[in-house]
């Protein structure tokens, strides 16, 4: 990642190493993206630049290591720790939090892939259960509804983009999604709509 590439744990002063682990602790505990302000308050420093530099070093350390975890820098500058996507299907059932079932997540994929899209079209492709899915996804803050005349237009939220570490720019996001779907479908083949959900 950029100019910090050369830096590694060895080059860091003890004090900086301690700050690195504090960022790690904060990200581990949060389970959500943290902005530089929050991270600064944990480190008791005011320099966001410094915090960003350290968080990037940490993210890089994680990327270099053989590990199931990753630390990502989101577009809006926040950092998040999470399980790498490829491990999700393997350990999903162990997670304690109630999980969103596959049906609504397929509807989410479809909306993300075709957005902006009318609710009607989603229901036509995914079946009438999609009404329930759409409601669930809206409750989770992953999609938003917008009235346009008689139609209801659906699209994903910035929360969605952040959750999956995707760009806020729709065009870029769709490209990223395409790649992501290709990786995912190599694990399980793409489904043509209407079938099981």
């Amino acid at each position, binding site marked *: 990642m950029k100019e910090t590439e050369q830096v590694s744990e060895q080059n860091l002063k003890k004090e900086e190493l301690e700050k690195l682990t504090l960022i790690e602790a904060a990200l581990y*505990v949060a389970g959500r993206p943290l902005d530089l302000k929050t991270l600064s308050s944990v480190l008791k420093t005011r320099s966001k630049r410094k915090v960003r530099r350290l968080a990037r070093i940490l993210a890089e350390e994680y990327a270099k290591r053989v590990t199931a975890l990753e630390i990502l820098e989101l577009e809006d500058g926040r950092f998040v720790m999470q399980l790498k996507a490829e491990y999700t299907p393997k350990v999903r059932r162990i997670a304690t939090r109630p999980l969103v079932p596959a049906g609504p*997540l*397929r509807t989410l994929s479809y909306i993300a892939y075709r957005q902006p899209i009318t609710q009607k079209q989603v229901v036509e*492709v995914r079946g009438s259960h999609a009404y*329930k899915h759409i*409601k669930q996804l809206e409750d989770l803050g992953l999609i938003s509804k917008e009235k346009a005349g008689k139609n209801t237009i659906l699209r994903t939220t910035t929360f969605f983009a952040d959750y999956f570490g995707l760009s806020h720019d729709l065009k870029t996001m769709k490209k990223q999604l395409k790649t992501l779907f290709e990786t995912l479908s190599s694990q399980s083949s793409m489904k043509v709509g209407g079938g099981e959900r």
Partner: protein
Amino acid sequence: MTVSREKPFYFNPPWNILFDFNRLNKISPWQVKISFLLTSFLEEMEKRGEIDFRASGVALDSSAFIYLMKSKLLLKLEEPPAPRPVIKDIVPPPLFLPLRHELTSTTIEHLLQVLEEVIKGERLFVHKIKMEPILPQPSEVLPEIDRYLMEIQKQMENLYFRLKGVLREKRVIGFSEIVSKAERLEIIRTFILLLFLAQQGRINLWQEEEFGEIFITLAEENVIEGNGASF
């Protein structure tokens, strides 16, 4: 919980059709999947914990109406339309949300603090139960009553025997005389026994004025019924 200002969930698709009678009259009943609508309506209501009987009633009424319309059309030999073909489009694989560990903020102190409130509620509940009328077990209580009644009978006989002795010489005696040396409790007991004796017609009791002396005489032998207590 949902904010009360929000309109109820069932005013949104797909359930809104059940609550819009004007529209219901205009649509083709074949477009409405009643079982799906009702099942999901109930599920949603349960999930939200907002059980609304009025809404359920309206939903039921509308479903019945739709069934009626369907039956009428069938009687007119109108074929139900073929199911709408599902439009084929590529549906990408599900996007599983990234798993993140999150430390939750609930501590054992929180758990115990709320427990305190719950236990208070439990006490109220238990208290309420105890206040309900409970019929005593006959086997335990009846012998008690028997013993009490037997005791009264015995005491009554004693008192009657005493009165008979006193009243052999004079026909009338005042209540204050027979309890002149008695304790307060004894006075009350004697008074109650006098009432019992009068009730059985074995003595006569009367007062000449309110709060005045109570006079006692023996009733005529063999007269069991008749003018018992007269005060």
